[in-house]
């Protein structure tokens, strides 16, 4: 059954496609979604009534709402994703591990292979590892804990910090926000909960790793980050999954509150296998003089629909979205971002780079909105697409709703083909075509990669190289 962990998929260039054949869920997963499934999840987690009701309400929204076909719908309607063929809850362990040794061997082996414990030792402030529906391990450095930093899975936070949790949960992305936010709100499980107290600066990143193992899995983690005034935090998430011939689903909700003068950076390196639908809602509320940043790297998945958004709610708030997408054969990255200027003297930058190859498709879909009265807003949107061959495709769908005159808005977009002259130049210096193409692509995405901590920049360049393998020549 399935591939062995030692096996790596050779033809696709995807090196994370193994599954753990020895894994057995501790619950009895059922396919399909129903009220009973929703209630079952809530019961198993022994949740308070308000959360159970929240889930049921969200489930009703899910039932009522049609599949999105409008602007933000991407092209989900072109796929036959069967929601009845998905497991909505797969519980991997009876209890979360306090140390890696507590984590069952077959699961730990996967995270070892992904280099998570090693990264934790070397350069992280804390780590969380989610496997199918639940977090199997989390840890944060003792000194940060002492300073009052909370970093745990969202389920534990509901139990251990009920008041803080309830004050913010679902306030940034209400359960009826969109069809997939409803779905997540109904069946959410796992994800990260972070609270950084006033003035506390967390120097090294906190990282969460999301791994799907089960075939036809639906993973619905829920993340809530609250950065109190003047605090500073960088959160990084990575994601991979086995390669299966049938579809899996990942539909997360991420809510972030960046209070006065705080700084939050949320970095994603998404590298799902190409049978995963990745339909994610991410939103940040940014208050006075605070900075909220998304660094959104989309390399994997079959279809991604994800437009991280930044709501700039008080003067001086700054938002930044760096979006990087790579689409290979059979992939569509429908990504981008939204910056909503709801207060005067707020500023934002959206910078999107996409690379399409081998009939892959990328779309930049974005929105820049300036409310009436939000004078002195400065915003720039820049999206560049690179096509590596004739079969690939890239589209740009920028929405601009500017309802205030005294603003400075810049918008630039470009689509270019892998330049024959650039290739020739590098080849005339001895590099073969594949190496030359890799170098040009790495250069193209450099402005985004250089924003990452060194370890992730190296990782991302490596992933891009894997993606590029066999794509030229």
């Amino acid at each position: 059954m399935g591939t062995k962990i030692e096996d790596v998929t050779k033809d696709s260039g995807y090196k994370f496609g193994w599954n753990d054949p020895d894994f057995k869920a501790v619950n009895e997963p059922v396919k399909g979604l129903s009220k009973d499934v929703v209630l079952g999840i809530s019961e198993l987690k022994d949740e308070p009534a308000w959360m159970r009701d929240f889930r049921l309400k969200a489930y009703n929204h899910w039932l009522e709402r049609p599949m999105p076909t409008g602007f933000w719908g991407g092209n989900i309607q072109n796929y036959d994703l069967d929601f009845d063929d998905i497991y909505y809850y797969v519980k991997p362990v009876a209890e979360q591990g306090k140390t890696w040794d507590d984590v069952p061997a077959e699961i730990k082996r996967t995270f070892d292979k992904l280099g998570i414990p090693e990264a934790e030792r070397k350069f992280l402030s804390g780590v969380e590892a989610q496997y199918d529906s639940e977090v199997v391990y989390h840890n944060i450095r003792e000194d940060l804990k002492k300073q009052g930093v909370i970093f745990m899975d969202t389920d534990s936070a509901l139990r251990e910090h009920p008041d803080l949790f309830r004050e913010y949960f679902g306030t940034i992305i209400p359960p009826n926000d969109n069809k997939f936010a409803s779905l997540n709100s109904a069946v959410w499980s796992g994800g990260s909960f972070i609270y950084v107290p006033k003035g506390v600066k967390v120097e090294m990143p906190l990282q969460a790793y999301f791994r799907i193992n089960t075939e036809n899995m639906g993973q619905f983690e829920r993340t809530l980050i609250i950065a109190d005034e003047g605090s500073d935090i960088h959160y990084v998430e990575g994601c991979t999954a086995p390669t299966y011939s049938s579809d899996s689903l990942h539909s997360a909700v991420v809510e972030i509150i960046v209070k006065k003068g705080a700084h939050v950076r949320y970095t994603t390196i998404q590298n799902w296998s190409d049978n995963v639908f990745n339909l994610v809602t991410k939103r940040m509320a940014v208050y006075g003089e605070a900075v909220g940043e998304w660094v959104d790297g989309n390399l994997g998945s079959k279809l991604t629909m994800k437009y991280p958004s930044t709501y700039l709610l008080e003067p001086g708030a700054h938002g930044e979205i760096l979006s990087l997408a790579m689409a290979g054969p059979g992939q569509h990255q429908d990504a981008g971002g939204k910056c909503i200027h709801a207060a005067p003297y707020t500023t934002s930058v959206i910078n999107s780079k996409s690379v399409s190859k081998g009939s892959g498709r990328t779309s930049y879909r974005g929105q820049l909105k300036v409310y009436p009265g939000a004078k002195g807003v400065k915003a720039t949107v820049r999206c560049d697409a690179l096509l590596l061959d004739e079969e690939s495709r890239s589209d740009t769908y920028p929405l601009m709703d500017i309802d205030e005159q005294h603003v400075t808005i810049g918008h630039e977009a470009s689509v270019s083909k892998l330049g024959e002259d650039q290739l020739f130049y590098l080849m005339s210096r001895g590099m073969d075509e594949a190496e030359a193409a890799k170098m040009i692509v790495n250069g193209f995405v450099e402005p985004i990669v250089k924003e990452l901590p060194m370890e992730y920049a190296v990782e991302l360049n490596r992933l891009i190289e894997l993606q590029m393998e066999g794509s030229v020549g």
Partner: protein
Amino acid sequence: MNNNGGSMASNNETLFRVEHLHVSVENTEILKGVDLVVNRGEVHALMGPNGSGKSTLANSIMGHPRYKVTQGKVLFNGNDVLPLTPDKRAQLGLFLAFQYPVGIPGVVMGNFMRAALKARRGEDVPVREFRKLLDETLDLLKMDPSFVRRYVNEGFSGGEKKRAEVLQMAMLKPEMAVLDETDSGLDIDALKIVAEGINALRGPDLGVLVITHYQRILDYITPDKVHVLFDGRIVKSGGPELVHELEERGYDWITNPEASGAGPEAVAAGKENA
């Protein structure tokens, strides 16, 4: 140091030979039968009016895919390089300094140079050795070390681009280098520095083809032979004195001998190569 003795270095061993080369771009024939022989240690100058096909020859020698060779051969150390992709030609020791070096956004000069050197040598170059060679070469060409951290040809001034081409040549140590208007866009001091750099690379093994419009650079780098390309053919070849003649008289007496009242000799030379 200033080894511009030219022919003294030549040992009459054929290094590079272009035979009856015909090249088309987008179905238009640009080169109409070019013949050229460069011996080891020799420097040849190639001159000719705008649009005569000089860059077409340079690009074809290096294997640009847009330039289609329809007839002829390019022999390097006796082997026809036309079936080879540009990277293979470079690895063998052919080098082209571009007339218009293209920018490669996001690719840092230092990394690019290291990859190029690795390709040329066929093995990784230890960081230390690379740094040393790079520093020495920057020094030779009086280039600022910060250059190495910039993106390849991005935002370089015209002169900086040309210097960067010579930097690459100096580091990669080709056996046969084609310099396509490397002197254009250089100020007087820069021209001298670049010419001295090229002279420093001269030796009994290196062949050079200098494409230029001006006598200036050839005052520093005395060529062994000078050729005039016109309408896709070499219509005149001679010694260094030809440069002065061209400087004084222009091209008209060669390319349009009757109108300019040139002697029968010139007409014969033109026809002979046609």
